[in-house]
């Protein structure tokens, strides 16, 4: 479980624009989407979680333990992240080397390293590409390898920071399918950062952020219901929601439901 209590951060002193006293609890094993426009504070939140920004106000508890200077390095090992650009996260000459890199760095014994690398590649359906060069893969494959590298470290929490925004629609589907599978196993908490409302459907909970504040949070249905909050947060409704809002009123419905009701 991760708890943020009154978390605030400013890039300039005296202003709370980046993160303005937010409180949020994320349960172990949940898939939580954090949605917001550029500058809404979602990236600041990630940077604090990853220990890149340390000078924040408020408290963060990880598994009940308050994050502080002494335990920060240790607690950070429970987090892994996949970034936006699939081309900026490779270090190995082959897919397998890349996934093994983090383990090697942590001094994991060779036998265990091989086992964990294989298991991670298997989890993202990329084991048959183990000897391929990462640069020659498609965008979706690259992001799946990046997820495998993260999973090999056996994190409690996997953060995906706009991980699908630079890949094609097919790659996006591949990544979301893999996340669905990881989520189904129930061990890893997923924090999915996005500005695309159509990508949050599979998550358990979602949080909408604007100007450093949490505007709304709830189940995906509850979030979708409050279209005014979404529009005010500079988010763009998926096509079928635009149509249903205009023709059938505020109630959220799936695409299939819309077709039925028209």
């Amino acid at each position: 479980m991760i708890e943020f209590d009154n978390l605030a951060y400013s890039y300039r002193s005296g202003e709370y624009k980046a993160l303005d006293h937010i409180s949020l609890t994320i349960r172990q094993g949940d898939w939580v989407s954090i949605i917001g426009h550029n500058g809404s504070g979602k990236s600041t939140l990630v940077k604090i979680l990853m220990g890149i920004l340390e000078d924040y106000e408020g408290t963060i508890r990880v598994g009940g333990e308050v994050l502080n200077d002494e335990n920060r390095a240790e607690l950070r090992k429970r987090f892994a992240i996949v970034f936006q650009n699939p081309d900026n996260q490779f270090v190995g000459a082959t897919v397998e080397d890349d996934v093994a890199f983090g383990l090697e760095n942590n001094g994991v014994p060779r036998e265990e390293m091989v086992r964990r690398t294989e298991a991670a590649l298997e989890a993202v359906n990329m084991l048959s590409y183990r000897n391929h060069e990462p640069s020659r893969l498609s965008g979706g494959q690259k992001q799946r390898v990046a997820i495998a590298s993260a999973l090999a470290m056996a994190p409690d929490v996997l953060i995906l920071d706009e991980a699908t925004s630079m890949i094609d629609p097919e790659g996006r589907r591949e990544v979301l399918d893999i996340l669905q599978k990881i989520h189904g196993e129930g061990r890893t908490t997923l924090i999915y950062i996005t500005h695309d409302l159509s990508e949050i459907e599979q998550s358990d909970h979602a949080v909408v952020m604007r100007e450093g504040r949490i505007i709304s949070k709830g189940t995906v249905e509850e979030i979708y219901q409050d279209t005014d909050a979404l529009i005010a947060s500079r988010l763009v409704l998926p096509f079928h929601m635009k149509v249903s809002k205009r023709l059938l009123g505020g109630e959220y419905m799936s695409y299939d439901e819309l077709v039925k009701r028209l």
Partner: protein
Amino acid sequence: MNINFKNLTSIYHQNTPFEHLALDDITTTFEEGVYYGIIGHTGSGKSTMIQTLNGLLLPSRGEVRVGNIVLRRKSRQKDIHQVKKHVGMVFQFPEHQLFEETVLKDVMFGPKNMGMDRATAEEKAKHYLQLLNIDASLFDASPFDLSGGQMRKVAIAGILAMEPEVLILDEPTAGLDPKSHIETMELFKRIHQDMGITVILVTHDMNDVFQYTDKVKILNEGHLVKEGRTADLLTNEVLLEKFSLEPPDIVRLIHDLEEKGIHFDQMPKDAEAFVRLYEEWGANHAQ
């Protein structure tokens, strides 16, 4: 100015074990003033095609004719430079290519490099910066002090200031948030309409292709498999499925409603247009 591909073949790493046929014997025309979409699966040859369009890649066989200039396998630098003058390319993340000390200098760089004198280059730069709503107070600022959206506009102004007759857009909205995505696409629409230039858009976003382009060319494994009016090709679900392309949202909805027995006599371009059409249909239906 038209662009013609004649039996154009592009091969990477020719005569090596990595030899790869990226474009296979393509003959086609890009007509002046038309807004084109190039679509196809990853690896279909889209990137190769646009790099060939502006002289970044020379054909392995065949030729590309840009106005009066012909590029072949062994074309000279002088001709390539001429083509770059006529064909502007907005790469993915164009803001990564900013480098000058000030916004104005950055936008002036391209036109000066193309041989424009200083005064004219400055005049053009100011004109296009203003067209893209970059305030004059920012002209002397460092481009790196601007917001991401402003940086992208400055980079685009730098391309426009060269006054290309053809503008190529390579995934221009990749990594943008939804509002900026719409703003960027509307900006190119305005440029296309106001300046009357040919625009060639390469994207995976079928909704954008449907909404903004006049004509499309579909590539598959290096072959040009279909070309025609966007309104015809992107509403043909059998064709799209054959090349693993997703129909635009609006096309999918119209087709699903047709299966329910609701028929419309036209194809709307976006959600707003659909809403109006549906309300009309409802009003007629009620009588």
